[in-house]
């Protein structure tokens, strides 16, 4: 039975066309995935269904929910639909809950809306039942828990619980797991699938990563620049896809293993010895964010460091960069002890995660990229600086015209290119890449990864790539460290670890990371079973 049908739908906001002629259809108990890069209009599409659009929006076409056009509804009628039929899960679980109210209050508030005369005792019971449905143990997480006590994944479960409390027919999940770790992502996705199976809810899953949804979706819609590029049944989609953009997305999602024929020198560039970083907490014993970590990085080597958020990998990076004082241990750069002194700063640089926060918004690209020159003993003239900056910009794929621009004039991917240019401008021996590609779209991500790999090879730079995502690391490193709770639990060549993980944590990481080839295979197997 068709649950929701979008027919010839167009949307323009302040006369700018956002969505153009969209057609799609979702059946009850099925999963529809909308995939596209940022700016493709996929989030606008999901907001349009629930009619939460910014001012100045003009809509054309039809959105039919059970053959009832939602676009004809008044705001009052729409409220009833949002209450009874539609549920929404947002991307950022950290801000989707009110921090001043307990999770119980927030769930009960939602139940009360649909059922205003419910008795308090029943209300409590129902709230507990719903929390159970999202697999939150009521002994560990009683109704009077406040959101700040929950992790991102647990909060997302509460958000799902709130959406479920009104028995929606259709659940819209806008990048529900993008802000979460891979292992948590896998669990949340599993939960969503269970809901589809058990309660026959239809789900619209919006994502930028084909690999995340390939496993779950029954129907895939690829969007780009406000248009549907291609759509089809998942079972056959990957074989029959024709559009070059779909193929591009597919290739980006399919991570290749890093080429093995690189030469690792014997010279040790970075040596970390028994590094420990403790934070003093009030009334508690000190927290060891980094606990007795030792490793080396040789010339020409590409080392990966993988772990979930909160495992201490960023603290370790900040210690190595001399931004944070560490409690115990030693860091040697090029054989000399490093504690933030200027002479050794030249040897190491960094590319951060956030392409928006890592530039002073008031400086031009020229000034931004030239900043590390400050570390040189002999200051360069303005002309020398400009020549070098221009050469570096060319290397990262930007033009001469970009010299005088400001950071806000660039897209996320371009900004990350500028960040790379800034990191490489003094020709350091080591660069640290702290989640440098996590904030980017998949296609842009592969482009940046390729750029990094080629450039570091060309310039003979070693890097330490820090990420929460094992598949990204697999693509770009030859050796990898796996970190959990401040300790390195496994270390070895990337290919070997990937084939034959020893520590159970590494295993769970590998299993949880979305893999499109694996997903397609399992889909096909399911298909065969069904037909048999």
């Amino acid at each position, binding site marked *: 039975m068709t649950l929701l049908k979008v027919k010839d739908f167009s949307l323009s*906001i*302040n006369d*700018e066309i*956002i969505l153009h002629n969209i057609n799609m259809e979702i059946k009850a108990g099925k999963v529809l995935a909308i995939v596209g890069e940022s700016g493709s209009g996929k*989030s*606008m599409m999901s907001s349009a269904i629930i009619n939460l659009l*910014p001012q100045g929006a003009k809509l054309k076409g039809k959105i039919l929910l059970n053959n009832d056009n939602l676009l004809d509804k008044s705001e009052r009628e729409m409220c009833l639909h949002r209450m009874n039929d539609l549920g929404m899960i947002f991307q950022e679980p950290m801000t989707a809950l009110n921090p001043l109210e307990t999770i119980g209050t927030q769930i009960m508030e939602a139940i009360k809306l649909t059922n205003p005369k419910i008795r308090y005792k029943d209300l409590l019971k129902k709230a507990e039942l719903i929390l159970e449905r999202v697999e939150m143990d009521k002994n560990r997480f009683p109704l009077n828990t406040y959101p700040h006590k929950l992790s991102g994944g647990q909060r997302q479960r509460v958000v799902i619980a709130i959406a479920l409390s009104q028995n929606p027919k259709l659940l819209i999940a806008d990048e529900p797991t993008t802000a979460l770790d891979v292992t948590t992502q896998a669990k949340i996705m599993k939960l969503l699938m269970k809901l589809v199976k058990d309660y026959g809810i239809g789900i619209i899953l919006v994502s930028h990563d084909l690999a995340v949804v390939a496993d779950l979706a029954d129907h895939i819609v690829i969007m780009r620049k406000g248009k549907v590029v291609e759509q089809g049944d998942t079972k056959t989609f990957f074989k029959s896809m024709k559009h070059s953009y779909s193929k591009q997305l597919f290739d980006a999602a399919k991570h290749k293993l890093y080429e093995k024929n690189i030469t690792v020198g014997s010279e040790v560039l970075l040596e970390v010895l028994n590094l420990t970083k403790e934070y003093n907490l009030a009334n508690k014993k000190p927290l060891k964010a980094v606990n007795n970590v030792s490793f080396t990085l040789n010339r020409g080597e590409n080392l990966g460091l993988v772990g979930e958020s909160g495992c201490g990998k960023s603290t370790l990076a*900040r210690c190595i*960069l*001399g*931004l944070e*004082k560490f409690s115990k241990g030693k860091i040697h750069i090029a054989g000399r002890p490093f504690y933030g002194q*200027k002479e050794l*700063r*030249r040897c*190491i*640089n*960094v590319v*951060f*995660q*956030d392409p*928006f*926060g*890592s*530039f*002073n*918004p*008031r400086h031009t690209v020229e000034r931004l990229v030239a*900043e*590390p020159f*400050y*570390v040189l003993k002999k200051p360069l003239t303005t002309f020398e600086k400009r020549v070098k900056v221009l050469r570096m910009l060319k290397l990262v794929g930007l033009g001469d015209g970009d010299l005088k621009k*400001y*950071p*806000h004039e660039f897209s996320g991917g371009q900004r990350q290119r500028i*960040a790379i240019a*800034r990191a490489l401008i003094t020709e350091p021996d080591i660069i640290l890449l702290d989640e440098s590609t996590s904030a980017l779209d998949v296609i842009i991500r592969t482009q940046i990864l390729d750029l990094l790999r080629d450039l570091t090879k060309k310039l003979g730079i070693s890097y330490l790539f820090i990420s929460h995502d094992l598949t990204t690391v697999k693509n770009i490193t030859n050796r990898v460290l796996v970190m959990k709770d401040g300790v390195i639990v496994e270390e070895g060549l990337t290919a070997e670890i990937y084939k034959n993980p020893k520590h159970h944590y590494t295993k769970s990481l590998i299993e949880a990371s979305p893999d499109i080839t694996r997903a397609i295979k399992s889909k096909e197997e399911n298909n065969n079973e069904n037909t048999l």
Partner: protein
Amino acid sequence: MKHFSISFIVGGGLSVLFLMGALLSFFWTPYDVELLNIKGKFASPGLEHLMGTDHFGRDILSMVMVGTRNAIAVSLIAVGIGATIGVPLGLWAAATCMNGSRLIDELLMRGNDLIFAFPSLLLAILITAVFGPSIINAIIAIGIFNIPVFARISRGAALSIWPKEYISAARVAGKGVSRISYEHILPNILNLLIVQATIQFSIAIIAEASLSYVGLGSQPPNPSLGRMLNEAQTMIFFAPWLAYFPGGVIVALVLGFNLMGDGIRDLLDPKLRQKSITGKVSNDAS
């Protein structure tokens, strides 16, 4: 194309008007402000004297023009003193707070609190009473109670900039605390400081008027708005224009600068700027 708010247009218009009048008084006033004309005393506002004359027959319009000039000069220099001392103190406090040693931060900010604890006007009266009433001492007094305001606001704003990644990047490049404060922090908190400066400016105008009202500001025969009000007090029932004009000018001057400050804040604050189509707030602040 930016849209100017009404408050910016009205406030800016008023401020420019008074600035022009004050500048004009350097070269030309209708009459000499020190010229006494006992025969023509208490003339009502009319064609000859637009704002009338006082008990010595001095032209009120000329006195108001020069008085406004004095008020603006005193406030400008006083706010300048407050900002040039307060902002570096605030930046220093923020930098030490973010980099381990909190002792200097604590000392600076508690010292700030000490100055804050005095009612600002009382402090100004204290200073002028100790060092003698003069226009210079009034400037110093008003300047001193501006310091903690600027120190506190720049410390708070700087603390929100310090954790940003571009600061980390600058530190990785080997830049020291003072250079980072000057190159990265200051330009990014400047709009906040400009807005605060306009507000402090209007407060300083009132402070200057109050000081000269009690006789601790500029000394006669140099005209001042506050003292004109004081002198008008005894004659307010038969020559009300003596109070109307200087009082009105103070109100309009303060109102103008306050409105302009609000307008500038709206212009510079990226959060209040027109939202982009996605509903997200544009995050640049250029």
